[in-house]
């Protein structure tokens, strides 16, 4: 799970974002992109020294200004569950494809042949039309 994927998973969760200049933004993550640009909702901004506060309904933060993000513990637990489910799926698939590999190959070959046949038939039809 890449850091940015984890961030995507953290959508709709509360988080703390600290910028390089030391300001912190507390809010719920609405969306993020591959550049770590983020949208927050219900934000409380705190000055560098922690002595001034601003509330705002929403804000956009450019990714390149971010120092770090702190996210709730349960987001990592969500990821763990997801990867566990995915792995189970992958194991099953792996087992199936191993068992079914000759069949798959056969299908592939046959499939190829079929398309060939279709092409041939079409060609034949075309030639008939001619």
């Amino acid at each position, binding site marked *: 799970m890449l*850091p940015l994927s*984890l961030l995507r998973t953290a959508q709709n969760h509360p988080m703390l974002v600290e910028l390089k200049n030391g300001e912190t933004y507390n809010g719920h993550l609405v969306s993020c992109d591959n550049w770590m640009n983020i949208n927050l909702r219900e934000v409380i901004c705190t000055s*560098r020294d922690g002595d001034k506060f601003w509330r705002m309904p929403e804000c956009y933060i450019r990714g390149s200004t971010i*120092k*770090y*993000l*702190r*996210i*709730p513990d349960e987001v990592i637990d969500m990821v763990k569950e997801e990867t566990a489910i995915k792995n189970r799926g992958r194991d099953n698939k792996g087992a199936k494809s191993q068992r079914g590999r000759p069949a798959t190959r056969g299908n592939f070959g046959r499939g190829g042949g079929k398309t060939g046949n279709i092409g041939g038939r079409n060609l034949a039809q075309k030639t008939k039309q001619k």
Partner: protein
Amino acid sequence: MNRPELEGTAHLLDELDKKLIVVLRDGRTLIGYLRSVDQFANLVLHKTIERIHVGKEFGDIPRGVFIVRGENVVLLGEIDAQKEANLPLRQVTVDDILDAQRREQESKQDQQRLLTKALKERGLNLMPDLTHDDMF
């Protein structure tokens, strides 16, 4: 980890799930388990603490899960569990270490003021950048 394509290159993948110390450009020290990295050295730290050192004392503040943007990282180091057990440092409470840190910062600022004043008397107008919190 067997990654022949990465032979001889520095990479972080070997450090996954190990307990690491991370020093940021602002001088802060984080200690946590590395769960993920990407090509920008963005990091995911789990069960993170922030460790504050003042002299021979230190204090830990639990911080949880971090996504650190790679460009702010100065240093990563693996923590040796055995050596960690007998540090030549003394752990104190969070309140105590924060107090000590504040005192240290104040004394540094006093020092800076004295220096500026002394230099000014000698005809040098040094303008210390007080907003500068970047150590590196």
